[in-house]
């Protein structure tokens, strides 16, 4: 067996070990590689920045702990920005069953800048039904959520007094990991009610959502952990996404180096009549 054949049949455990070591290093000793903010992230930031006081923003926690590492920093960055905006009302909701718990955890961990629960922000909780639930929410919020996640009747929450349908919402943000997610919100909320919409997505679902940004159906999007890190940079905050970006860079380099090695071994091995 030639050296090229040995390289091509490299035990996958070596690959795992190399990746583990290379990704661990920048997590333990951050380098702080410079990051350029993408236009999609900038658009989301600029839109929130332009919101006048008394605007109503919905943040939908449509993800689960499986994408926590990638998407929770997005939610943290967005919520931090919204909390900093004086007078802006925040409605947290979820069309994924684990969303309300993630929202509660987030609310306990960030500075609310004097905003009060029930007056300035609420966590409405989860409603099952996917796309139908989104449509029901958009058409009649109090009927879809008669009580919030903390079991308060919705009519006892002062900020919800004048918020009845999607027509009363100024901006809708979904931190979406899959379905129901972007296409369903575009169909049921952005389209019929003309509510400006943006999303935080796992990196793998960014390409399929790009047409919605180009068509104007989405204001912008946060692409994976990088999107969260870019947003943290705009907010001038050092969060977990910024720390994780060096690891992302290193992992990309590992994959690219392995692809190069694999192709070099493939072509040289084939040239010598070995690998197929």
């Amino acid at each position: 067996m030639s050296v090229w054949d040995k390289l091509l049949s490299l035990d996958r455990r070596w690959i795992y070990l190399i990746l583990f070591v290379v990704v661990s290093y920048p997590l333990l000793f951050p380098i702080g590689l410079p990051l350029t903010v993408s236009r999609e992230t900038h658009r989301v930031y600029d839109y929130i920045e332009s919101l006048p006081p008394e605007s109503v923003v919905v943040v939908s926690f449509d993800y689960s702990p499986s994408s926590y590492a990638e998407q929770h920093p997005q939610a943290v960055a967005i919520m931090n920005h919204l909390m900093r905006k004086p007078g802006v009302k925040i409605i947290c909701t979820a069309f994924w069953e684990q969303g309300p718990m993630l929202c509660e955890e987030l609310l306990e961990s960030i500075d609310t800048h004097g905003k009060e629960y029930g007056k300035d922000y609420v966590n409405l909780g989860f409603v099952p039904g996917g796309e139908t639930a989104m449509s029901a929410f958009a058409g009649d919020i109090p009927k879809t959520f008669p009580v919030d996640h903390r079991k308060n009747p919705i009519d006892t929450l002062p900020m919800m007094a004048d918020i009845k349908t999607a027509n009363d919402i100024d901006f809708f943000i979904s931190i979406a990991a899959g379905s129901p997610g972007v296409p369903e919100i575009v169909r049921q909320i952005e389209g019929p009610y003309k509510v400006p919409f943006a999303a935080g997505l796992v990196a793998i679902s960014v390409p399929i959502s790009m047409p919605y940004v180009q068509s104007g159906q989405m204001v912008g999007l946060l692409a994976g952990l990088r999107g969260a890190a870019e947003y943290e940079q705009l907010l001038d905050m050092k969060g977990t996404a910024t720390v994780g970006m060096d690891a992302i860079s290193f992992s990309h380099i590992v994959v690219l180096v392995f692809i190069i090695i694999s192709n070099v071994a493939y072509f040289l091995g084939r040239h010598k009549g070995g690998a197929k």
Partner: protein
Amino acid sequence: MKKEVPTITTFVVGVIVILDYFFQLGTGTLSLEYFSREIQNWMLIVAAFAMGLAAINLIRLHVVQIRQRKTGWYNSVALIITLVVMSIIGISMGTDSPLYRYWYNALLVPIDATIFSLLAFYITSAAYRAFRARNFDAAVLLVTAFIVMLGRAPIGEQIWSSAPSVANWIMDYPNMAGQRGIIIGSAIGAVSLGLRILVGMERTYLGQD
């Protein structure tokens, strides 16, 4: 009757919801919007009921696994124990109780995140084995993926300053064209399937061919 009632119900419900999406007819409790909203609220109740049904089904399936001592039956034991314990705590003490949140944060979050993170290892291994320029198509895919990966990582900008702009061009033109085609195609497919279901030509959702 087993065929006709569900088919007629589907047709009536479907037509009301579709018409409500496009038109405003009637007022108050005699409006299309009112009927559509009521139907959607029923759907939410059915969806909530279905979640309970799914839990019962899951338990039944795993009880069979345990009884028959099938491969990995002990995983089924773990599943049933956690399902029952979490349900009891959640229902009796609430999902905001410290005990429920402890189980959630100490067990579910790290386990779920770990399983998802393992993908990084599989993807690297798969890329090493499968990403080879065996022919022209594979070479195009390889080069494109290489540039996009380089352009999306901060270190890529340091290696090649044009990487982000080239990656953006790939995302904005070839990717956009392809994705838009997929979205339009699947939308046409969904409309066609919806129409077949409405008129009763498609009955697989009733458990029939």
